[in-house]
């Protein structure tokens, strides 16, 4: 049986798709058979972030409506052979997704994969509810910013009341906090919520902290999940988070501002890799 993981946040633009792409790639790089599903019907973007946008033939809606078989809609990643992508439809509206349809897709994928990652759309409408409904675990992506923290709290409430596990009164969905776009310099200056503040308010276990990094935009420009950029702090932070998810004990890194080096470093080396 595969583990179903939803990547969710409530708020848009906090890094759900970046996280889904990085995390799925990270699990696959560690040999886990992983599939990542885009639930944002009508506004798909996971294909672009994964760099497979030119190869999309069929999507999840085609599969649910019986127009294509699941293995025809799955896109095998060319970089990591244990990784597949199931794109969202770009042309249909969100009502094309049904609970029964999604259940069938997830059950069929369960037979072939170790991990099924569901990249949720923003909001708490149908697409987002379906993305989290079947989850065993949830990665809640949060920026250290008031509206993001509030929306994460809201989505935690939804996970506890509207997921299949909650409806069936089974053990609750395992929650993980992933703080993204963290800027240690601004947090230290008191211009940004501190990590401890976010942890205290949301009170769920911390899976990782991904610092604000130029490499995220570069990764999206080129369609390469940022976790493949091993030089970058964001890539390393995602890699650590995947390790922790799989049970490794790794200290959190990149939480403190980098201490200033010599004159040259101050003049030229100030940018995050």
């Amino acid at each position, binding site marked *: 049986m595969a583990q179903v993981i939803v990547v969710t946040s409530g708020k848009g633009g906090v890094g759900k798709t970046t996280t889904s792409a990085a995390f799925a790639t990270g699990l696959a790089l560690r040999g886990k058979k992983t599939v990542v599903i885009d639930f944002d019907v009508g506004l798909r973007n996971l294909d672009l972030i994964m760099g497979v946008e*030119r*190869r999309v033939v069929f999507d999840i809606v085609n599969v649910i409506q019986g127009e294509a078989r699941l293995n025809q809609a799955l896109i095998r990643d060319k970089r990591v052979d244990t990784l597949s992508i199931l794109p969202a439809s*770009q*042309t249909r509206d969100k009502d094309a997704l049904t609970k029964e349809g999604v259940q069938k897709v997830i059950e069929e994928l369960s037979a072939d994969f170790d991990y099924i990652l569901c990249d949720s759309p923003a909001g708490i409408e149908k697409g987002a509810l379906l993305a989290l409904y079947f989850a065993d675990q949830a990665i809640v992506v949060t920026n250290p910013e008031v509206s993001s923290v509030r929306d994460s709290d809201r989505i935690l409430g939804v996970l506890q009341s509207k997921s299949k596990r909650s409806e069936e009164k089974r053990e609750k969905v395992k929650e993980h906090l992933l703080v993204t776009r963290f800027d240690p310099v601004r947090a230290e200056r008191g211009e940004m919520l501190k990590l401890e503040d976010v942890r205290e308010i949301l009170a769920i276990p911390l899976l990782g902290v991904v610092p604000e990094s130029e490499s995220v935009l570069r990764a999206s420009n080129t*369609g390469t999940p940022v976790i493949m950029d091993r030089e970058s702090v964001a890539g390393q932070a995602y890699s650590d988070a995947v390790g922790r998810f799989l049970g490794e004990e790794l200290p959190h890194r990149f939480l403190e501002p980098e201490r200033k080096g010599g004159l040259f470093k101050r003049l030229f080396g100030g940018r995050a890799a």
Partner: protein
Amino acid sequence: MSWLDFFRTRKQADPPSASQAKERLQIVLAHERIGRTREDFLPRLQQELVAVVARYVAIDPGKVNINLDRGGDMSTLEIEIELPGPPQEVKLQRAAAAG
């Protein structure tokens, strides 16, 4: 990082990625804009192709692979249909004839 590294990293730096972003967007959007005015024909195309082939050969619909590569000037659509081997009786008849 020492000051020497500064010169080294600059030399090795990858070319800026924004141009790649623009090129990828131009290709994907060109295809999506066409799609807005026309219904997605791929599911029907696949069904009809499989139906035509199935008229001549018994095929397993699960063994039809479709690959698409959208390009700027040209796209390629690859349809791979696995044909089954000759039926068992034919093989036996052949074996009998040869023997």
